[in-house]
């Protein structure tokens, strides 16, 4: 791919925490409308990378740009879906979903209508007046997603948004996400621990290695869209999952051993 056409362009990105190099020479281009997942063992810097792209965290060298504009701080062209739903307990579903628009002073009659449609799209119609504590984990995560989509981000950054969900809810949310993504037409950068989730959702999967965090391999997923959940049982799908698992298995084993033997 050519850098001139990239929606998101990352060049030689390096990030240190004190003396520890957490990200080393990240180079990647992501095209407009592409769905790209990042997988990798714990401590490979994938969340740090996503936070840098959002502008939540500074970086040391290299560059991150969206449509040629360098990222220095959060902007209305991006939105972040956090792993924890981080909803405000004092705001209703509607009001939580509207907070980005409020912060960016973009609330209007037109946006209000769109927000109503969006809440219906993510399956929250009829729950607008509920408080987060009245909702299940899956529904809170839908609000989290709606909150990010409400500002019409060109780039949607998602940090393990389904990690806290049970397996069934997760499967449903994956299919829903693909449906919503094809309607919203945004570029997505999606972090996950689940390799099958990454393969199922993505056009490309970036496999991160650790110590320091870097892109180990950039894999194009050539599975036809729209993808039904049954695609997960095809041999092509299994081959992708097997290949990626082979890449990160030893690193995951290492990080698991560290976590279980070292006092944290």
């Amino acid at each position, binding site marked *: 791919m050519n850098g001139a056409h990239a929606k998101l362009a990352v060049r030689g990105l390096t990030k240190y925490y004190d003396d520890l190099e957490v990200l080393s020479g990240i180079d990647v281009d992501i095209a407009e409308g592409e769905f790209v997942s990042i997988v990798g063992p714990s401590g490979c810097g994938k969340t740090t990378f996503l936070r840098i792209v*959002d502008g939540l965290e500074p970086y040391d060298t290299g560059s991150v740009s969206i449509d040629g504009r360098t990222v220095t701080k959060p902007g209305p062209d991006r939105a972040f879906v956090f792993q924890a739903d981080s909803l405000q307990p004092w705001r209703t579903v509607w009001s939580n979903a509207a907070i980005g628009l409020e912060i960016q002073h973009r609330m209007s009659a037109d946006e209000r209508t769109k927000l109503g449609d969006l809440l219906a799209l993510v399956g929250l119609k009829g729950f607008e007046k509920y408080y987060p504590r009245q909702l299940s984990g899956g529904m809170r995560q839908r609000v989290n997603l709606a909150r990010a989509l409400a500002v019409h981000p060109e780039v949607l950054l998602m940090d393990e948004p389904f990690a806290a969900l049970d397996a069934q809810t997760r499967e449903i949310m994956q299919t829903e996400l693909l449906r919503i993504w094809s309607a919203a037409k945004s570029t997505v950068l999606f972090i996950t621990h689940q390799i099958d989730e990454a393969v199922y959702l993505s056009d490309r999967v970036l496999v991160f290695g650790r110590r320091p965090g870097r892109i180990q391999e950039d894999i194009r997923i050539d599975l036809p869209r729209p993808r039904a959940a049954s695609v997960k049982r095809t041999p092509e799908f299994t081959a992708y999952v097997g290949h990626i698992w082979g890449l990160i298995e030893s690193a995951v084993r290492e990080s698991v051993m560290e976590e279980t033997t070292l006092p944290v």
Partner: protein
Amino acid sequence: MPSASPSATTTLAGTATAAKPAPSASKRRRAATRRTIVRAAITIASVLGGLLIWEFIGRVVVNNSLFLATPSASLIALGDLWSKGDLQKAIAISGEEFAIGFLIAVVAGTAIGLLIAGFETLSLILTPWINGFYASPIIALAPLLILWFGVGIWSKIAVVISLVIFPMIINTETGIKQTDPQLIEAARSFGASRMQIFAMVSLPSASPYIIAGLRLGVGRGLIGVVVGELAGARGGLGYLINNASQVFNMPQLFASVIVLAAAGIMLTALFQYLERLLVPWKA
């Protein structure tokens, strides 16, 4: 659910509800009403029982109004004070002292708490003083405040402020500091400014703490009024208490204390109501 599970039928066997595992909404509402009535009955029984025991001890065991006035004698004294108009006058004076002092302390305390939470240097400068004053029995300084501000209402207002302001400051600051960092991060990811984060995240998140500070302040403020008036005053409930104790008029002393207790209970209930109104997501 037409078929109740076997275990449910065995445990519920013999009761009328055994056939219906899910009780109807109206039935559940009635059960809830019954629970509320039972709870209220227990509370009322406790209060009445306590008063009866007090009356019994006062009449039979102690039988000396100098050492223990009975509730009935106190109530009669209360009626006397009311009919003479002394009680209304005292309530008006004490009420004014409390209201002005409480209002100033709440507004200033909340403002200082917010400033401390927002500016670290200010926090470093003020925190040792705030903690010091909060921990020390400032009430002992009441006579000094009377000396400074005279025997009028302003010395009592000063005592009330000195007691109420510190918990307000500390609660406000704690509330702001306890804000979930993930909520701040989420607002920041939308490009929120410091002011927006404060207004849309920190302040609402701190509001339960601020309201708890108000509730805490009620009791302290009432103590402030009474102690201030005991230390030197020309009117008010503390003044009534002081007069009564000097002439060993125990029923009148108890009558004044009952008024104060009632005021405390009502104000606390008011703030509890306010809490439900302002922080409905906690309910």
